[in-house]
């Protein structure tokens, strides 16, 4: 299981690297500290952004109201695989106690606030760092046994890597006694495995669809950069002129969307919540709960009781089939793999919940683990310095969870319109 996830991580990381290669940053001058000067964010600016953002978060997200009087303290500087600064993490401190953390991008080519949560940053949890050191030590022992001179490599200091939300790695350089680099070992911190970015071990299923292809991902990357640049401009404006803040933020949540617990698979469950909403909003012939989720799972060909996964292109068809089965042929369900923030707001403002299917989805508030490949029901949004979608995520039937818009490698919305 861990190996499989790790393999997918490697692929996503490769995509990130490829995606970054398409960004027009080739001519950027580089400082000796490894940061692109063109769009670099200094640690002082990042600290200002972190302080400003936690105030905004505490005022807009009820779960984080206790952050209102908190302060921030720099924890770690992260790098990408090209040895350039990628992010800064700050501990959020209240009454001398660490109550959470926030990650700020070290480049304006990415969103200002990358992620935040209660709890501790992974590389500050001794359990994870100790495990990573043990793995590197094991690798050093292997190298010693494999070498002719039986010399044990010297393990260098840990260099924290941050490739995107939830992709935390620790890089160690193994050197010989003369200080010459022998090998770089990268450990996936959450999964405690050594990863090799030059190698892929993902099995490719024998199935064709053209939803999340490379053109799509390049496009997503370009949109992300454009959006990120725009968010930095807005944020800097608001930080210098706080009066502009109150007029620029807005939020909306659709009431009456049921919360379904995961069953059969995330895609039928998330779709079930959307149709469950319509069942109580004028379409009473639609069934709800178990019967609805089961019917959706069959209609969209969810692999159950196998893997519980669903092909993205079958989600909209499955929803329409179920609506037709119950006499509603006026429902239009359509997949949109280029989902934009404007579309999200328009749909929510029209009181139409929709299914959001993510590739490498980030971490929702209240969790320490990422969503990964997951379908959720989007029931609202918060439009501020950082944009958030409000979700019924199939994991928790008591709370709405928030996720920063764009904290995924790819996403598809399934609009459901009667």
């Amino acid at each position, binding site marked *: *299981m861990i190996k499989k*996830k790790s393999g997918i991580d490697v*692929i996503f990381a*490769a*995509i990130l*690297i*490829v995606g970054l*290669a398409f960004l027009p940053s080739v001519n950027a001058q580089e400082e000796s500290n490894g940061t692109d000067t063109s769009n670099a964010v200094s640690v002082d600016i990042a600290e200002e952004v972190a302080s400003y953002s936690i105030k905004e978060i505490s005022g807009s997200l009820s*779960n984080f109201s206790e952050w209102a009087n908190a302060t921030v303290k720099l924890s770690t500087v992260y790098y990408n695989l090209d040895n350039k600064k990628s992010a800064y993490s700050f501990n959020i401190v209240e009454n001398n106690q660490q109550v959470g953390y926030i990650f700020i991008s070290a480049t304006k080519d990415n969103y200002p606030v990358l992620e935040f949560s209660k709890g501790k940053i992974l590389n500050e949890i001794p359990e994870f760092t100790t495990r990573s050191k043990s793995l590197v030590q094991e690798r050093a022992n292997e190298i010693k046994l494999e070498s002719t001179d039986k010399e044990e490599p010297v393990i260098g200091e840990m260099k924290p890597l941050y490739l995107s939300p939830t992709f935390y790695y620790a890089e160690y350089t193994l050197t010989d006694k003369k200080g010459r680099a022998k090998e770089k070992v990268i450990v996936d911190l*959450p999964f405690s495995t050594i990863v090799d970015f030059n190698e*892929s071990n*993902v099995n*490719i*299923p024998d*199935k*064709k*669809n053209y*939803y*999340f*292809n*490379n053109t799509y*991902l390049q496009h997503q990357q370009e949109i992300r950069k454009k959006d990120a640049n725009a968010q930095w401009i807005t944020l800097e404006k608001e930080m210098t002129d706080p009066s502009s803040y109150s007029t620029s933020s807005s939020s909306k949540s659709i009431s*009456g*969307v*049921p*919360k*379904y*617990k*995961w*069953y059969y*698979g*995330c*895609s039928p469950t998330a779709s079930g919540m959307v149709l469950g909403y319509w069942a109580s909003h004028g379409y009473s012939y639609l069934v*709800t*709960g*178990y019967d609805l989720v089961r019917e959706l799972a069959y209609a969209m060909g*969810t*692999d159950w*009781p196998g*893997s*519980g*996964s*669903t*092909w*993205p292109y079958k989600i909209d068809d499955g929803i329409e089939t179920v609506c037709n089965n119950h006499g509603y042929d006026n429902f239009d369900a359509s997949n949109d793999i280029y989902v934009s923030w404007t579309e999200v707001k328009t749909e929510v403002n029209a009181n139409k919940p929709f299914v959001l*299917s993510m*590739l490498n989805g980030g971490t929702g508030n*209240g*969790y*320490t*683990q990422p969503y*990964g*490949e*997951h*379908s959720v029901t989007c029931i609202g949004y918060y439009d501020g310095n950082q944009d958030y979608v409000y979700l019924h995520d199939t*994991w928790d*039937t*008591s*709370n709405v*969870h928030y996720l920063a818009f764009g904290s995924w490698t790819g996403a598809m919305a399934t609009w459901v319109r009667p």
Partner: protein
Amino acid sequence: MFSKKVNKKIALLVFLIIALLGVWLIFDVIPIGPGLPPSEGMPGWYIPGAWQGNEQGCTSLFPKISPYCNAGNYSQEKLINVWYFDDESEFLKGEDTLYHYLEENGNVFYQELNISEELQEVIERREAENAWGPIYGPYSFNVTGYKSPETSGYFLVYEKPFLKGRDDYFVVYYGVSNTTNLTKEATELKKLIAESYYMANGEGKVDSLKPGNKKEKDNILFSWF
């Protein structure tokens, strides 16, 4: 110097082409789901309030039989401790270790527990909140009871609650600290079990905690039918 630069550019171009081809192949064929939390997040599945912050590290009352272990604390010293396993052999080993620890440190017994009333209350309350959870397991099942001066309570084992093809195993302890009077606490603990059970999925098996040899015997008997 110039040729070095050119070589680097060619290498980068080759890398990009290979990576793009790989990406094209992979992203044409990625399905969504199952959409379950990774192993680290699984213990929270059975801890009411886990995602509102009521999730602490594993209790020290028992051996740490799984790296994926968390606890939830509730009023009147009640607690839930969850050990999660994503591998059957690790689960069997952990279950056996825990069972022998219990035998050495307290009084172990089997009991049938019926939570119909408590579960019905939870279902009705959650329906009023517009929530739904798949509860298709039995409302009455065998549990392993445990009494010791430090804590007393019930152990339940949930096997493969999501998908038949996935290895998901949970050992869950519902208990009260600093008491041996389980009869007095039974009503409150049944309510706690019902809250947690509501969060379970309808598939798989719910059973008591058993030592390895007892499990083997049960399996042999089962194979006759």
